[in-house]
């Protein structure tokens, strides 16, 4: 177990190093940060001097060396726009994004597991066909379309739900974490963005769970469980479902990591004050330190989520030894 975590930590460090290298090396292609920082009236000589001060004229390796030395100490640079450490800016926006992803994940789990299991158990029913038909539709429609359409229907026409932002009734938890989960206004603001975000992954999960469950139902041990005289409920929800969840956890973990990235679209449409929205703004402002910091933080989230997924997988599946060579 400890060996497994140590290995993972080492692999994570390598991954983070590669991400930092890539994100740092693309920053020159994003545009000129000075154009946004200073007004039109500043002369070319002053611009050059500013570039020298910021170290933008140094060779790439020198710049990167400087960056990595600071990064190891937890300093990912200072945002040109906010004039604050980039990491602090991002961490301040992170709770909003994590809450959004968490809410979307909850929606996905609550709907996809029963729907997928139902489709596997009753392959020929009308409802199964309906679910599978709609899920194809869900995969094909892009998220911003779902988002815009639901804003039109539920906020503008029906007026049930707010169309943007997190509302003003946020409850501070600790540090800079303010949650919208504890007030009805906060929850109302969460509904549309979370549903839109969930809509991309939901069909995929339903189909994944259905096919894995069909596979599990055709195994010998499920047949043997039936031959033992167990009730259908126990056969389906203990014997078959537990085996279904193994591959679902592996794929699902990666997908939930991906969802953190997908929030860029959802957050933009709903003006959600999270990391994705921030990233888009940073790109517009050519705020390179912030962009680099965002890429590194998202990469870090990926690594952490994947490690957690592997840990959970090891807990469920007794045949996996976490310290094993192929971990």
């Amino acid at each position, binding site marked *: 177990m400890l060996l497994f975590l140590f290995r993972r930590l080492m692999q994570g460090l390598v991954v983070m190093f590669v991400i930092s290298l890539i994100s740092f090396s693309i920053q020159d292609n994003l545009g000129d940060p000075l154009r946004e920082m200073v007004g039109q009236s500043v002369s070319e000589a002053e611009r050059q001097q500013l570039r020298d001060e910021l170290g933008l004229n140094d060779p790439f390796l020198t710049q990167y060396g400087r960056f990595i030395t600071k990064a190891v100490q937890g300093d990912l640079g200072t945002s040109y726009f906010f004039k604050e450490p980039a990491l602090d800016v991002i961490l301040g926006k992170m709770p909003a994004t994590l809450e959004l992803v968490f809410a979307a994940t909850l929606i996905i789990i609550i709907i996809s597991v029963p729907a997928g299991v139902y489709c596997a158990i009753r392959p020929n029913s009308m409802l199964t066909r309906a679910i599978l038909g709609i899920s194809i539709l869900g995969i094909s429609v892009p998220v911003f379309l779902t988002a815009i359409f639901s804003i039109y229907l539920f906020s503008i026409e029906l007026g049930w739900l707010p169309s943007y932002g997190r509302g003003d009734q946020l409850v501070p938890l600790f540090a800079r974490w303010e949650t919208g989960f504890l007030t009805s206004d906060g929850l109302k603001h969460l509904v549309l963005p979370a549903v839109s975000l969930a809509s991309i992954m939901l069909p995929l999960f339903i189909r994944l769970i259905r096919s894995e469950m069909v596979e599990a139902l055709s*195994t*010998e*041990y499920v*047949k*043997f*469980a*039936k*031959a*033992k*005289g*167990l*009730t*259908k409920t*126990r056969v389906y929800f*203990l*014997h078959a479902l*537990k*085996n279904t969840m*193994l591959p679902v956890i592996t794929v699902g973990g990666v997908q939930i990591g991906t969802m953190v990235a997908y929030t860029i679209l959802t957050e933009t449409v709903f003006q959600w004050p999270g990391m994705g929205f921030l990233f888009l703004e940073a790109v517009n402002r050519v705020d390179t330190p912030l962009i680099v910091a965002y890429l590194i933080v998202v990469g870090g989230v990926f690594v952490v989520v994947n490690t957690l997924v592997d840990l959970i997988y090891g807990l*469920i*599946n*007794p*045949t996996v030894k976490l310290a094993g*060579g192929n971990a």
Partner: protein
Amino acid sequence: MSLLEVNDLCIEFPSRHGIAVAVKGVSFTVEKGEVLGLVGESGAGKSTVGNAIIDLLSAPGRVAGGKVTLSEETISGLSSEDIRKVRGRRIGFIFQDPMTSLNPLLTIETQLTETIIENLGFNGKQAFERAIEMLKSVGIPEPELRIKQYPHQFSGGMRQRVVIAIALAGEPELIIADEPTTALDVSIQSQILDLIRTLCKEREVGCVFVTHDMGVIANVTDRVAVMYMGELVELGTTEQILQRPEHPYTQSLISAVPRTDVKLHRFPRVEYIEKAETKAIDVKNHWLGQREDFGELKGDALLGGKTLLDVKNVELKFETQSAFFKKNRKYVTASDNVTFQIKDGETFGLVGESGSGKSTIARVIAGLYKPDAGSIEFAGRDITHLSERERMPFRRQIQMVFQNPYSSMNARMTVNDIIAEPIRFHKLAESEQKIRQITADLLDHVGLGQKSGIKYPHEFSGGQRQRISIARALATRPRFLICDEPTSALDVSVQAQILNLLKDLQDELGLTMLFISHDLPVIRQMCDRVGVMRYGTLVEVEETEKLFETPQHEYSRKLIELMPRVDQLSRAGLDIEEHREPALA
């Protein structure tokens, strides 16, 4: 009244192309404490009958007619909830493969106690005590410890014991065992068979024992029902069926069983088997007979007696746990100082249980694995460390026939291309026309007919595919053929034909063979000399007849003792070899 009565049972599988009738009007009875064997070849419908009794037919199968009663109570046509209460409580079920019939994610405790709680209405604590008791009665040591473990921590034989414990946990009146020992080694098979038989007798439980193996039938059953193409063709006591079979199908089935007591010259030709007319080839004038570059043995190749293959002190280890430091790595020894010689023209058998390293040796000889130490000499030349280019002529001379005829052929190539590929690769024929002619002759020769060349592998049955494999192996004009369990995936009657074909080919082409099998009777029928393997070492090498009559090594004795005996089989119409023929016929 009988315990189980099956009356006129009909089962059908509706499909797009109409209704396939899998079981036609089968009737039999089972008494308390009696073991009834249900025997037949694949597709006979024997497992279908077993599944139908407890309504576990796989979709879209359905019972079309007939009646099943258990202790005078009708159990066919019950609602799904009512038949569920019969399962486990009144009828226990044992499946074929213990590796797949236990849920890998649940402990033995969960899987055993859930059955007890469901069927006997015990509370958790009583169920646990009961479970321990059950594990003890099926012979699992340290049940208190083992019950907390998961299936993957048990060996195959131990798992089948757990499955039996589960099947008996609800105190059923009847057990249906579907090929319960087919996936197990002989030594474990005999233990499991003893266990099932003892438990049935002690507890007065009836048993329907589904199997294709006549040896198992002879050891465990009281009466036997023989099924053929969905019909029950003969029903009688085990003694009568084995010694005086009446129905022609039963007779042909019994004559095809590899015998443990005598060596046959050839298995008898019988009806009821897929038709295969082999066409003889005049080897002297045919391409197949004109062999080239046999090295220094050329010319006296057919004289026999000389050593063709010399396996010297071969060692091979596989790494099972990798580690950064050498001392932390763990290995399993697949082959430990194995030494034997195969003479030109003889058939050498390798026998042993699973994991004994038989197939590893075959792969080392074929050049698929490199040994860690030791050497392989073929026709007087060391071929252990040849480069790919230098090995090429030896690859041509040494060919392999694999165990599984379903996975050893490219499904996207026609049979013609499959057989022609090695000829083209080694550039053995001058023209495409010549290649086509050779392919056609080979297909005729192995009994498939040249017309089948334009078909694809999936259009053939298992036995026919194995014929294609053999034709492909012959296409390079090999002098040495390695057969790795060539018939263990096949039915007995088909097996008899394939074995006959191999014997014929050997006689005509003067092939030398390494024949690997876990099946002792097959080894007895095929081989001149046999090596017995265990845990990667060769424990005994002996002439076949001597080995079976007077085994020297303790392990060989045990293997031969445990082999299911079919000594009392009818000998009608058999072509028994009176005196062992010399190594080369």
